[in-house]
């Protein structure tokens, strides 16, 4: 599956902060790394169509999603870009099954029940289908959020710190599922995290943002260096703050 994302001279201003990027992202898993306030979530919201740019153009597979100069803007519900926010935003009034099926295309619109079923199976969600969201653990919620986003058959999946708030065992567990999803469905992903380990493990390319600008990009091994194994951290040459060099699981 190809999903080439291009951000052409995109600029967003939020008070004193501004995000300014001009880059092209290759299909696969791209990790966005950077300190808090670097603009990572703002970037995902821009791609998903939840935030308007003040300048520039966003393209996906050659389709123009937003073009400020030509006043073109495709609404989020027409983009087919999945988004799993940090707080997951599961629908508390629906059970797990109805959460997962919320965006799943109907059979007459090309939906495939068997693919949703296999997604549920792969993510071990079958026993949870009738449960309410309020009764789920953190790891279970993460898996439901992933299944809900994938069941909508997105052409690009945006994950905003999907492992935040989980203990190490649960993180490893959800990471295993993410690897499996990548292998099985090959959905292109953009993955935000503060944890170098997760990105080194999962992503093909890393983009480092700092103060709304591109600070570095490259393969994980070019961006991170091994810390105490199995953890990784940002290469010292790229660090400007201790937060960026955060080491997980050392």
């Amino acid at each position, binding site marked *: 599956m190809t999903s080439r994302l291009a951000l052409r001279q995109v600029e967003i201003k939020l008070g004193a902060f501004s995000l300014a990027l001009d880059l092209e992202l290759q299909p696969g898993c791209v990790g966005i790394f950077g300190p808090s306030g670097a603009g990572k979530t703002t970037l995902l919201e821009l791609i*998903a169509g939840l935030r308007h740019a003040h300048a520039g153009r966003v393209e996906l597979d050659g389709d123009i999603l937003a073009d400020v100069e030509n006043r073109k803007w495709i609404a989020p519900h027409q983009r087919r870009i999945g988004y799993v926010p940090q707080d997951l935003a599961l629908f508390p*009034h629906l059970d797990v099954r109805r959460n997962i099926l919320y965006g799943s295309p109907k059979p007459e619109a090309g939906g495939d029940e068997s693919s949703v079923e296999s997604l549920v199976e792969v993510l071990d969600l079958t026993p949870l289908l009738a449960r309410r969201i309020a009764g789920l653990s953190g790891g279970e919620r993460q898996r439901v959020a992933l299944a809900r986003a994938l069941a909508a058959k997105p052409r690009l999946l945006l994950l905003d710190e999907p492992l935040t708030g989980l203990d190490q065992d649960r993180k490893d567990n959800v990471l295993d599922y993410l690897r499996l999803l990548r292998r099985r469905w090959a959905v292109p992903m953009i993955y935000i995290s503060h944890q170098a380990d997760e990105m080194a493990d999962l992503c093909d390319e890393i983009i480092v943002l700092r103060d709304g600008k591109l600070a570095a990009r490259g393969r994980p091994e070019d961006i991170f260096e091994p810390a105490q194994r199995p953890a990784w951290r940002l290469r010292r040459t790229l660090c400007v703050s201790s937060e960026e060099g955060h080491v997980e699981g050392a």
Partner: protein
Amino acid sequence: MPARSSPNMDSSSDLQLTANDAHAIVLTLGSALLAVLVDLAPGIALAWLLARKSWPGKSLVETIVALPLVLPPVATGLLLLDLLGRNGPLGSALHALALEVVFTWKAIAVAMAVMSFPFIVRGARIAFEAAGNRPEQVASTLGASPLRVLFSVTLPIAWRGITAGAVMAYARALGEFGAVILVAGNIPGMTATISTTIYNDILTGHDQHALLLAAISIVLAFGLILGGEHLIRRALP
């Protein structure tokens, strides 16, 4: 105008409900229900706009919506009387359409709707703010149109707060007195409500009968509060 035919009525008949009392009870319950139903759609829409959007004049609208909570109800009634009276800006237009509002049951519903509107808006607004806009945003990335997002995510998630606001609004409407008596008068069998009938009874010395209606009000309030709590508990999440 007295609600009862004679101030010298004996105390045993004071403890009996008359046809006018039954009319007042039904009129009060029905007008309050109509007022809340009329308030719901604009109240929820305004609450959503206040919770989610920034727009010029927002503070002014917030203040106007809250006015009935702060103004003496009689003052609100006076403003409504000036607005809806035959010479008023709205009343004259309605009169041209052969629609009389003042001193009819319609005026009761209008007064109750105005007085209870802030409760609907506040309840819904707090619910929308508490839910945040993330579920709506995620629903849109899942392919849901704005209308589907509204009915499948926004309203169901906020339903508990909206229900609580509606119950409070209904309770407020049931007890409304000052605004109602000014715009609708207190005509037994026509525009007298429970509150205005109690007032009349006290003025005319029928304290026992006033107490009887007060007791009925208490029973209604109990039923309303218990029923409302049940509805709110059932409304998920």
